[in-house]
């Protein structure tokens, strides 16, 4: 698949929340959201199958569209993948290391989406996910580095081939 093509899209209602510290379902003018606390690193998890068209040439780029309660400060995320191949025991988590979506200034109007992204190189950083692999994507708010006070709210997530 060519660079820039969409591999997967996730929306809030597809969340498979972890047992603790999970992003909570919210609604903003009818838009489902995943609400993230500003102090504790809440997470959301999505499951998909990497499309057969994924070439595994460079890796993927994860785009996160989210709004914020705040009109100042920054919003950042941590992204991790977990390959679910035959060698994976799903009774335990085995996510690769978090990849950091650099925190950026939130819009001056609360409710305006801000789309941020991080490129994740193929191999270990992607937990070696390749075409045809079931996998999970975990998104955690980077509470240690972002500065926006109050909730941030994920609206949609897209994975593209880098």
């Amino acid at each position, binding site marked *: 698949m060519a660079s820039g093509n969409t591999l997967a899209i996730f929306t809030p209602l597809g969340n498979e929340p972890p047992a603790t510290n999970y992003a909570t379902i919210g609604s903003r003018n009818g838009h489902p959201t995943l*609400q993230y*606390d*500003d*102090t*504790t690193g809440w997470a959301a998890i999505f499951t998909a199958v990497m499309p057969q068209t994924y070439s595994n040439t460079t890796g993927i780029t994860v785009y996160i569209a989210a709004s914020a*309660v*705040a009109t100042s*400060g920054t919003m950042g995320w941590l992204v991790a993948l977990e390959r679910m191949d035959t060698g994976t025991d799903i009774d335990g988590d085995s996510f690769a290391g978090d990849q950091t979506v650099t925190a950026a200034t939130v819009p001056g109007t609360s409710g305006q989406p801000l789309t941020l992204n991080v490129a994740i190189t193929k191999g270990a950083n992607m937990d070696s996910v390749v075409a045809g692999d079931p996998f999970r994507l975990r998104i955690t708010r980077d*509470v*240690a*580095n*972002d*500065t*926006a*006070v*109050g*909730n941030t709210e994920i609206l949609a997530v897209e994975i593209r081939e880098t």
Partner: protein
Amino acid sequence: MANVPAQKKVADLVNGAAVAAQAIRAQVAILKALRTIFNTVNPSVVGTPLAGNLAALSASIDALDTQANLAVWTAMIAAYVPSHQGNSL
């Protein structure tokens, strides 16, 4: 102490002050309303805890009212962020 930026730690005190200020203002409003009714009814205070204390109590209610309505408290209420749950300090 959570490992979070200063802005979130500041919000802990801002939110706490805002919640407290609103509660104090509500209680002072109740006291002022009670005082108004009391003054209208004007019962005898002889032999009660209010004997000799009525003026001081009224003055204290006024002082609380003044303090609770200082601009600094209004600013804290205006800066309140409901979705900030605290725990940052």
